[in-house]
């Protein structure tokens, strides 16, 4: 049930069932063969057939088809409600009358290729869902004749249809990133270069291993964690082969197309405070050197345990990847150092 086809098929069926349920419920008061009940049903059935047909395409086709016919359905329902004498139904109808045509426009634009309308369809649905929630709340509190199961069921059926569209629009294959998400991703991408990081450090015994490898006649490799409270940990890889020394810095936990830095090392100087790595052509960088792992005071420490809420922010996939990449490594920096 996790393939995109299955998800789309379920959404189409749910939309149809929701529409059919609304037909039965609307027909409860006006008669099943009344125009008020039959016209929306006809729209839902046409939408169902159209959505089934669009299953041969992608999620975008299915979503645009569903949203288009739901928009038409809302337009008709809004027109019916506007002529209702009940005040709440009138306001409800006005809002639906506004959102329905908008959804038609957004859905047709999405179908034509304007992918960003996906988000607008989602927000249109959420707006009506909020309206339904407020309607139920206010109705249940103040309307004296409110509260029959059919009134509530009708709104719930519509909510199911709208939620189906919302869930569909969030599918990974067609979801658009928001401006905030995009900026956050770009910021992290920029931060990968560590321009602003001034607390990146390695441990003293790690720097000693690097010096030992530099002095050694043999080839080998040293792998260390670069630790920092300002950035995610990096892996420093020093490789010595045929007398040539190369240093790479990789990012842990995320997939990047390139390693961050690949430098041919000319000389490494370790003093009391820094390890400075010199390459050719005047290029250099330096890391702090500490005896022990530094405590991150931005995170709480209770009964000796550091409480890190940052890790919960990572998405499931990134978290899995992080665990996979850092399996067997010791965060204290004592277990990850090895030299061949």
């Amino acid at each position, binding site marked *: 049930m996790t393939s995109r086809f299955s998800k789309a098929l379920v959404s189409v069926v749910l939309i149809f069932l929701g529409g059919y349920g609304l037909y039965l419920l609307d027909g409860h008061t006006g008669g099943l063969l009344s125009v008020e009940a039959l016209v929306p049903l006809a729209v839902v059935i046409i939408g169902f057939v159209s959505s089934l047909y669009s299953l041969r395409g992608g999620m975008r086709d299915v979503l645009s088809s569903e949203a288009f016919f739901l928009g038409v359905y809302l337009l008709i329902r809004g027109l019916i409600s506007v002529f209702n004498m009940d005040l709440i139904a009138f306001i409800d109808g006005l809002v639906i009358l506004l959102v329905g045509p908008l959804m038609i426009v957004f859905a047709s634009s999405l179908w034509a290729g304007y992918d960003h309308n996906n988000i607008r369809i989602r927000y249109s649905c959420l707006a009506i869902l909020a309206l339904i929630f407020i309607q139920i*709340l*206010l109705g249940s*509190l*103040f309307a004296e004749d409110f509260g029959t199961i059919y009134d509530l069921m009708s709104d719930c059926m519509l909510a199911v249809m709208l939620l189906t569209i919302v869930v569909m629009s969030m599918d990974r294959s067609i979801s658009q990133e928001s401006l*905030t998400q995009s*900026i*956050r991703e*770009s*910021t992290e991408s*920029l*931060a990968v*270069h*560590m*321009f*602003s*990081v*001034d*607390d*990146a*450090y390695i441990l003293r015994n790690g720097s000693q291993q690097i010096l030992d490898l530099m002095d050694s006649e043999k080839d080998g490799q040293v792998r260390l964690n670069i630790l*920092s409270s300002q950035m995610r940990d990096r892996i420093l890889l020093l490789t010595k082969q045929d007398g040539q020394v190369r240093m790479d*810095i990789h990012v842990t936990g995320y997939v990047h197309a390139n390693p961050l*830095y690949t430098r041919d090392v*000319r*000389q*490494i*100087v370790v*003093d009391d405070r*820094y390890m*400075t790595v*010199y390459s050719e*052509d*005047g*290029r*250099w*960088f*330096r*890391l*702090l050197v500490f005896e022990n792992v530094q*405590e*991150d*005071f*931005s*995170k*709480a*420490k*209770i*009964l000796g345990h*550091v*409480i890190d*809420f*940052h890790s*919960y*922010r990572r998405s499931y996939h990134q978290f899995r990847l992080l665990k996979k990449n850092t399996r067997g490594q010791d965060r204290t920096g004592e277990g990850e150092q090895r030299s061949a």
Partner: protein
Amino acid sequence: MQDGRIRGKYKGILDMLMSNISYAMGVIMIFYALFSAAVDMKSKDMVDVVLINIVPIVFGILIIMDRHRSLFFTVGLYAVAIGFSRFVQYVPLVLTKEPFSTIIGLVLVYMAVNLMYHGVRFLRGNSRAITWVIVGTMFFILLEVALIVAYVVGSEGEITLNADIADIIVKLFMLLTYIALVSSAPVRKSTNLERLNSELIAFRLNTGTGFDFSLDTDSAKALADFFRGDVDESRVTVRDQGPVYRGITLPFRDKYESGTLFLQRWEGPEGPVYLSLCEHEEGSVLGIDTRRIEEVTESGNLVILRYSDSKTGIFRVRGLKEDDRPLFTDSEGAA
């Protein structure tokens, strides 16, 4: 007048207050919740009393137990605890059968949920725009002030300090402390926009792509002298280390931000001179770009550097008036 010591001590006191404010928050939360529970026990159900007050007590204890005195943790737990208490308090208002109370209740419940959401964001070390946090908190403050005003007006000149007034005053104090905490630098600098800003500042300073890069008069002279081989030994920060013969650091700035210029001569007194720009001076330095300087010329108030890759870098020499230095010296210099 030499006021450096007084300034230093005053700054130290401010730092100490800021670092211990979380203790105060934790203690106030616990005492307030206990006091509130004692008062509410007479008028409310036991379940409500426990629900409203248990979270602030537990979170207050956690805040006191935090050895790192993490501001994010304090602010986060505080916002969640207060938000939860408000939520439990105001939900019954929504469910009353009076339209006015319901609408006010809905707004208050929304504010309470919003406060909890802020708290969760703070716990993750990621703030929201502080202005909106303050605006939201001000809403609660105005509510409390309105209650005091209503009490004073209603008391007809006979004002007595009872439990209700004490409750409001403590609430006001807690809300004001919350504003103070969210205004602190670590929290303020942790919004998405601030993070992006700090990365972009570092990027533009490191790559030298910002606008109006400038050096003060002394630094411009030191740069030209260093290139010519006339090194001021008092400025030297790296001496005969690795391939570096001499290295100095000079402050520079673009239109708004300041950074550090690393100047190094490699391979002895006649060796090539390299320039690197960085946003900070101390600590680790990563991701910097290095250029070899071929020629330094001074033209008017500009220092023009020609690099080995045929590109040109230009620094403007700042006038004395552009930096905040003693006004008397400035006027002397101008004269």
